[in-house]
């Protein structure tokens, strides 16, 4: 059912539990070819190698423009003064942090259903990145809070659910490192990511609920900050794109690294290493 040459995309193969009925095999093969191309580590390595310089250029450009604009040219907030500039770091990190569990859950589903190697590499490298981004979002939020709330930490709904998401990510990372068998780790983390993704949403709603009941007048909340004038929100949008690109570049670099480690025995990696 799986011809040699197609199977480099697989952790193993499409074995009996995944194989289709005879009648569907032909149809499935087209999907299969497509996935095999998309999921082939070598193909990804080559393609991402071509993209990477452009992404890095775009990211640097946006970062420089965004940071300069945000730090030097945005007018101070009438309430918060210069502290508002922390928003340009915090909001992009916080917004991208919310994407990690959905990303890992999708990658995990692909790992479980189609056993695509690349999907597991995404899941594996996204978890530590997610923990870092979440930690940065927490740290920047805490620094921001130290000025506007007068304290480094309050049990604000967003901070709390962000902290819990951080714990969940640490759980995924430690499960990955605890399981020795790479394939078992891939699948176990896939299950945990899917469960975790559902849980992140439940946590978010329940923490909001908890928070509104405990602090009916929390005074200031980050969401109150609707940056209306264009000179305030345009740099924010630029920074959001810059940080997304930063994430994309970090993810691609980690995946490329992971590919080289996992494929270290394959011919193309040997050729690559000897060629340089």
């Amino acid at each position, binding site marked *: *059912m*799986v011809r040699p040459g197609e*199977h480099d995309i*697989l*952790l*193993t*193969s*499409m*074995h*009996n*539990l*995944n*194989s289709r*009925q*005879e009648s569907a095999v032909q149809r499935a093969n087209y999907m299969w070819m497509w996935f095999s191309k998309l999921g082939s580590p070598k193909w990804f390595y080559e393609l991402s190698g071509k993209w990477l310089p452009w992404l890095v250029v775009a990211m640097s450009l946006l970062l420089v423009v965004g940071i300069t604009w945000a730090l030097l040219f945005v007018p101070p907030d009438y309430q918060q003064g210069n502290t508002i500039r922390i928003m340009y770091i915090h909001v992009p990190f916080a917004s991208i942090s919310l994407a990690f569990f959905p990303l890992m859950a999708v990658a995990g589903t692909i790992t479980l259903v189609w056993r695509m190697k690349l999907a597991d590499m995404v899941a594996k490298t996204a978890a530590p990145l997610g923990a870092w981004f979440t930690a940065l979002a927490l740290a920047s939020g805490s620094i921001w809070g130290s000025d506007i709330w007068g304290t480094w930490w309050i049990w604000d709904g967003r901070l709390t659910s962000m902290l819990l998401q951080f714990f969940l990510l640490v759980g995924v990372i430690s499960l990955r490192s605890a399981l020795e068998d790479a*394939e078992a780790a891939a699948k176990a983390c896939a299950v945990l990511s899917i469960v975790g993704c559902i849980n992140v949403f439940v946590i978010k709603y329940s923490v909001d609920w908890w928070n509104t009941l405990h602090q009916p007048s929390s005074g200031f909340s980050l969401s109150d900050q609707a940056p209306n004038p264009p000179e305030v929100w345009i740099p924010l949008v630029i920074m959001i794109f810059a940080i997304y690109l930063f994430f994309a570049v970090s993810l691609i670099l980690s995946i490329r690294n992971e590919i080289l480690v996992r494929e270290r*025995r394959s011919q193309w990696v040997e050729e690559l290493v000897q060629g340089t």
Partner: protein
Amino acid sequence: MASSVASTNNDPNSVPTIPALLDARDLFCERDDRILFQALNFSVTEGQVLQVKGSNGSGKTTLLRILCGLNDAYRGTIRWYGRAIESQAEEFYAALLYMGHRVGVNKVLSPLENLRWTCSLQQQVDTDELMVALAEVGLRGFEESQCYTLSAGQQQRVSLARLLISNAKLWILDEPFTTLDSLGVKQLEALLRGHADEGGAVIVTTHHQLKVADLRELTLG
């Protein structure tokens, strides 16, 4: 299972007159970057005993676990009566009896309680039937004692009693002889023979020289 002859017509690889109970094609398995086996083909038909041989670490246990679906880290196809297993999982698992290295005997339960549970996962049993089976494997008088008081061989016998009760067509046994004494070995051999004579099939790993009529061998590594 009654429709076995008809359904084998779908399978080009089997001889039409003898339906291949289990048919493995082009199995490939690698573990920790080491290929355990590749291009492995074999089939088992009714009345056959397939002995899987090979040195330690050659993948015997892995192969057996693959066949019963406990391990899915392989490539290739496995068919049950000519059809993919997942299209008839319930039928397949109802007809399968697996005995692994770990015999599946809970230490705090008695042989009777253990046997009752493992058997009732598959088929309805009554206590008399269980008692007879336990007596037959030499556990008379131990039916109600907790299993941690029994020796390893006796615990293995609790598991063997399943063979007496089970209606399963295919037995997959991983090193079932290891902890048995010579009497137990003889008894188990007789069980294997009897099962094959009744049209069942056995896949077994052992270094023991089996005395059965239709014995096939598969050597790994």
